[in-house]
């Protein structure tokens, strides 16, 4: 029996531009279940990335109901939200967001270190899974964009998160690399039966690969 990972009702999020309040999420109602592979699609500026950040607790929502693993996120303080993110959620970004001063291995290791775990074996295994074992000592600037994204995926998955949030993970890649990265994400998702993956994409191939597609327009989910 599947359990609900994220559930939102009337989720609101505004941004402030100077003194102006700009609504970005205008009442999102979604329910994501454990093990789902969900694609979020929509035009630029419709609030996809903001939704992902709210779900990943990188920022607080301004209204509505948001429950993660059954807990009301509004009732969690920053420390508790950070702990939940650290223990259960991982991000993959369009621009990889690797730490440029560290090697591929150290980048992956950092995710474990933040959790207080220093297992070298897991790091090596994660890099092997993304096919970069031989380049583990390379710095991001010495890797191709496709390889950088694979390091970012290894970093996200090394901690075996319950939820992977990917914000246009193929957005900066050519078609060949996009395909490879997408296959990697889907393959790793399938290997980990309990992992939930939510990704934002414009890529038709990824949309086809998703179990469910949520379409957003103007800060709302199109029904």
């Amino acid at each position, binding site marked *: 029996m599947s359990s609900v990972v994220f559930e939102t009702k009337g989720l609101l999020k505004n941004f402030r531009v100077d003194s102006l309040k700009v609504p970005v999420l205008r009442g999102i109602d979604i329910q994501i279940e454990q093990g789902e592979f969900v694609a979020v699609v929509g035009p630029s500026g419709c609030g996809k990335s903001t939704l992902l950040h709210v779900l990943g607790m*990188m920022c607080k929502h301004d209204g509505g109901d948001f429950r993660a693993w059954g807990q009301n996120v509004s009732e969690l303080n920053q420390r508790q939200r950070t*702990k939940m*993110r*650290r223990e259960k959620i991982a991000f993959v*970004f369009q621009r990889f967001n*690797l*730490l440029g001063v560290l090697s591929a291995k150290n980048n992956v290791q*950092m995710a474990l270190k*933040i959790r207080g775990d220093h297992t070298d074996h897991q790091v090596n295994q994660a890099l092997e899974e993304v096919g970069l074992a031989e380049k583990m000592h390379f710095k991001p600037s010495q890797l191709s964009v496709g390889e950088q994204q694979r390091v970012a995926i290894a970093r996200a998955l090394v901690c075996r998160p319950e939820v992977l949030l990917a914000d246009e993970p193929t957005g900066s890649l050519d078609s060949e690399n996009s395909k490879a990265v997408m296959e990697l994400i889907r393959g790793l998702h399938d290997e980990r039966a309990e992992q939930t993956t939510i990704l934002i994409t414009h890529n038709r191939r990824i949309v086809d690969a998703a179990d469910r597609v949520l379409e957003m327009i103007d800060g709302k989910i199109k029904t």
Partner: protein
Amino acid sequence: MWLPLANILHRKLRTGLSVLAVGIGISMLIVLVSLSRGSIDEVVKRWSSIRAELWVLPRSVDVITAKGDYLDDRVIQQILNVKIDGKPVASQVTPVFKASMHLAGQEQSVWGIDPDDLETIAGGKKIIKGRQFDAERKFKTLIAQKRAGRRDYDPDSISKSELGEGLELIIDQRLAQAAKANIGDSVGLLGKKFVIVGIIETGVPARVLTSLQTIRCIKGVSRARSTFYFARVNKSIDAVAAQEAIAKDLPGLRVERTGAFAGILADSVAIATIIPDVICGISVVVSFLFILLTVYTMVLERSKEIAILRSLGANSGFIHRGIISEALLISVGGIVVGIVLSYGGKMLIESHWPLLTVDIKGQWLGLAVVVGLVGGVLSSQMPAWLAVRADPLAALSEA
């Protein structure tokens, strides 16, 4: 690699400049403190050679320059007459007539002492080259003859050639090296040409010693007068009790224990230590403002990195520790550079001004380490606080 280390190594020039700035601050702290304290300690150490427990001087005299009224040597007998329970408190009183001269690029204190009192003043320090001034007591005997038992004599009755016998002095080894002076060299003192006749081991209270009689004669002092006296306390009497007894019986005199000279000197030249302390305080603050600026710039530049760490689940403590670690790494580098620079500075100062003492003690190095580490932690607090408060989303959305 550890992230804070990787970060500071990534910007080598900026890190190097920061380390150097902290190093300069730390070295100024070490050198100035070692110089001010070292110079005082060196004088105090030299004073410890005096074989007398009490220092007696006019109330009106300045203890450092010893400028002021002279005392009539009748005081010697008055001191010797002071008793506790019928027993004289002092067994010996040694007069000193103080003057000054310019040698080795700075003002030197010259003590005119009786040639027979050298042992008392020099405390066993040996003449390593040449001989004592007025070694055959010719000039001392001449003055005694002129005085012929009277209190007064006419210094003008001493002929030029007679005075020539007394124009001798000895200097300590350190001054000899600093002035590149040797036996037979002539030096100017009180408008006369004195000959260096001996070099004594370093460690005597005044670097230049000459005949008491000669100095008085040149100064035109007809009656035996002195700048101050050293009194040796009888063995069975406590020095403090002797000090109090003399002060009570001779209220016009200031009586100090020679052992307390360190404190008297420190109090009198407090300004000489306060100024270096203020300078090093300012230099240390400026150095740490440099760390603050460096770490602050690093935080501004690395808002994205901080946001990435946030996305990986790093809490405020993790971010805070990372920033402080970077500041501490710079501080540790600065401390190492500062210590190296301090020893370089010591060599430079002591080679250019050989009479200055830069006494780098473990306690000053320890102080520098503590100041460096505490300064590093404190100066990183504001940038660390900003890093913790930074909005991760704004940084992640940057190109």
